């Protein structure tokens, strides 16, 4: 956790993908994101970005946190990406 900084991607248990600046976290991996956006993937249209602003995500909900590679992220044209949404987790 401590090595993460800057913009991060969270993938949640229900399959949502949220991108934002990591503003803080705690021992339970609860995470605060600023300027966060949800990226909604779908097969029929490009990626839709929904502004969420300041967001607190409970650690229990988090499947994965990753540091965004800004170079790759800039090179990706989200509007042209068609993909199935990430599946919710199955136990």
């Amino acid at each position, binding site marked *: *956790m401590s*090595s*993460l900084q800057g913009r991060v*991607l969270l*993938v949640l*248990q229900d*399959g949502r*993908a949220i991108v934002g600046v990591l503003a803080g976290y705690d021992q339970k*991996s609860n995470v605060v994101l600023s300027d966060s956006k949800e*990226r909604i*993937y779908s097969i029929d249209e490009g990626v839709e970005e929904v502004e969420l602003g300041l967001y607190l995500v409970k*650690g229990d909900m*988090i*499947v*994965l*946190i*990753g*540091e*965004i*590679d800004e170079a*790759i*992220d800039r090179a*990706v044209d989200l509007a042209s*990406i068609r*993909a*199935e949404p*990430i*599946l*919710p*987790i*199955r*136990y």
Partner: protein
Amino acid sequence: MLIFSVFKTLTDQRVTVELKNDLSITGVLKSVDQFLNIRLDSINVLDEARHPHMVLNVRFLSGFHIHFCF
């Protein structure tokens, strides 16, 4: 505890982690903790065409959601 030890011996090796949401990620295992949270570097998604969602370097995975590891 046994599984934790196994993961520790895999440190710095390339591993594939299968998550409970069908996502499979390959990367260099950098660290594991007591909850089997895992940190991977230089990651790749196994099925890139189906999952272009990941545009990252480092990954931190919650142990709870890991299904399988090889």
